[in-house]
């Protein structure tokens, strides 16, 4: 009786060790690789906006294709803050150190996409801020396996994510 129980436990442990552990480990590595490529793509995307001062529909589309090629689905959040350095271009002698109000007009993903759809491009100016954040929306194999053993719930559980923000360095041209 005792032997059979130990055998069952051993088989069970062996199954975990032989199948689940390698599978989990490889699934995690797959996600790491996906994250690596998403991070690289995001960095390139933002750096490109930063040094050219514009965002085109073609670049945005290319970026989406690159990240989706990892086999996951993503939620892309773009926020662009457009700078109005000094709406009332003036400097008062009473406040000589005050350079400007530095107002920012924020545009979010839907507005950016709308503008790209309409004009095919978005021109940015020096000092504008661009911030892109991506998270996977599907469940990767690693997440599935992990949930099998220890349940994680909530909408903020993601496995692959990348973030990048930068200040635009040039005034975009046509």
């Amino acid at each position, binding site marked *: 009786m005792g032997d059979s129980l130990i055998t069952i436990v051993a088989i069970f442990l062996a199954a975990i060790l032989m199948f689940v552990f390698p599978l989990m480990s490889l699934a995690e590595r797959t996600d*790491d690789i996906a994250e690596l490529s998403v991070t690289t793509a995001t960095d390139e995307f933002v750096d490109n906006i930063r040094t050219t001062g514009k965002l085109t529909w073609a670049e945005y589309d290319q970026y989406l294709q690159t990240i989706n090629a990892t086999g996951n689905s993503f939620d892309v959040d773009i926020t662009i803050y457009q700078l109005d350095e000094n709406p*009332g*271009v003036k400097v008062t002698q009473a406040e000589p150190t005050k350079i400007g109000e530095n107002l920012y007009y924020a545009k979010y993903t839907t507005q950016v996409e709308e*503008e790209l759809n309409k004009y095919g491009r978005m021109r940015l100016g020096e000092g504008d801020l661009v911030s892109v954040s991506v998270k996977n929306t599907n469940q990767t194999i690693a997440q599935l396996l992990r949930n099998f053993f220890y349940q994680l719930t909530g909408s903020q559980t993601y496995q692959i994510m990348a973030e990048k923000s930068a200040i635009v360095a040039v005034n*975009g041209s046509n």
Partner: protein
Amino acid sequence: MKLQYIAVIFIIIIVPIVIITTTYINSQITTITLQNKYNTKLTDATYDAIKAFRINTVNNRYSSISDSKIRDIEAAVSTFFNTLTSTGDLSKRDIDAYVPALLFTLYDGYYIYSKYDNVVPKENADGDEISNLNMKIITDETELDTGDAYNTDGLKPYVFYSCRYKDGGSDFVVNYTLDNAITIYGTLRNWEWAGNTCNLKSGYSYQTLSGYLINPNYVEIIDNGANPINWKLKYKYTESGTEASLIKSEILTEHLLFTNYLQDASGNLIYDTSGNPIYDNGDYEYIVYNGQKIYYDKNETTKPTPYFYYNNYGKSFISNAEHNKDVLSYLNARLSTEADGSHHLYSTNAFEYYRDAKRFSEIISKLTDGISQKDAVDLQGNNIEFDVATGDRDIFVTNDSSNPNDPLLSKSIFDENRMQVIRNSIKTNLAVAIGNYNRYSTNSYQYSFPELDEVDWGKITNEVSVISFLQGIPIGYKFYNSYCVITNNDNEEVVKKDNIYIITKDRGTENNREYHLPGCTHLMECEFDDDSDIEIERGYSSIDFLRQTVRISEDNNIYFYPQTRVNMIGGHPSKDTKNITACYYCMVNATNVYSADDIIKGEIVELNEQEQEEVMISVVNDKGTTVEQKALEKIREYYLTALGRERFNLYQANMSGFNT
């Protein structure tokens, strides 16, 4: 075999695989993270470098002079290294070894910052030995390659964007610039200017010609008589038509702030409401003479002349001395006396730009007839291969209506060749500079010139830019190798087509002044009739909208914007100026603006619903008396005036004998 053994063997096989994969992927992640970190740092540092250059040139009133420019660039180099080393773990000395070159492209040439041998030749050009130098004599060239005693980092000599053309008896070099200005020197056909045309004569001679190349058929001079204030010319809508934008003399105004306090008639200081004395400030009419702004003080009666330079944040009046005779006669000829006895100073620079450019372009079109890209040769006389071939189409002939070539427009034959020459020159010199770096480097890394992509070449050939190279830093299992191109046109080097802003205001007042890009869609929708609410005041260069610093003492700066206007309270200027705001539709949110080329052509071309290009608004479209068409006519007139004036006003340090 028992199941347990199989399990153990399986684990023995799989665990190392998992460990190795994990380690490898982790190291890849570290590599990519480091690579991204260096990318960001490089962009930051390059941006800071160009920003330093801009701040220095805008606030340096002598920035166009060569020595001063070198100083500004050296300051930019030092900013680059400061930023690169400020947050990282590498010191300047460490990072220095990984930067093979920095490139600064300017208006008519470029500087390369790199390592070079800091040695002098043993003999001078005449073959005489240089003996009085207290230096060590190097007898063996291999000594140069060892250690760093003889090499130093610094700017190499300025290289012009030049290309040699040879055809028949003509053999000349053309120095290109970032816009339509060129200098031609070498053996050219003899010519004479008779009446209003250029006639070729027999024989060749060595000549130097500088000027702006335009299509001369567009320009028709109406008045170039004795009184400069009445000078005017037409810049036509089409080559053959009669309708045109009128370019005439104009009044230019700037706000200035001085370091002295405002005083009333009896010499007492004037205070603001909070009890602080007010710095003197006011609006002054100005014109540019020899690249320097000269202002007119209409209230000045005690000085010999009412004209002054803005020097050391004060007025430096021009004296009556003999050496000022030329400048004073230039100024006095442009000072009007109005019906009410008041005076105004008129700038005629825009007129002079188009008048001189017309003459220059006609001469060049005659002298270089038949010169095309295939005539471009290098020092040895071998033909140069360019990446984009324009075949045997004339480069500098601009007045042939069967072969359109308007140098003011992008993608003209002239512009294409200009970009190719710049690209070729930079590629050659930079490849040598980076290749040579291997001689000085102690790293095992092989430095080489990377392949720059087309977008970057587009930026480099059209704008003032800084290109930085960072190569050979070990990151994980790889070496970091990247470059960064950052451009900036808000400096006193160049006036690009997008660098003209148009000011609008409420009709007849100084209220609600707003500045726009010339292609602003909002501006294009305005009615500019005689009874419209707003009117166009004038176009100015974009740097007139940048903040200027007035330094009172160490750590005590005050600022002003030249295009704000004085705010008179109680009969004296107040401490605040009237403001001028940026247009939300084009300056803040610049997505949908028409291109400057469209404004010059007088045709707005857009994609229609079938995705085909269609002329939406045109100044020569008789069908439309639409609001937009009138707006385009007005905008084109102010835009061309401002573009001509601002380009004419640039101080051209390296272009002597302009328009001769």
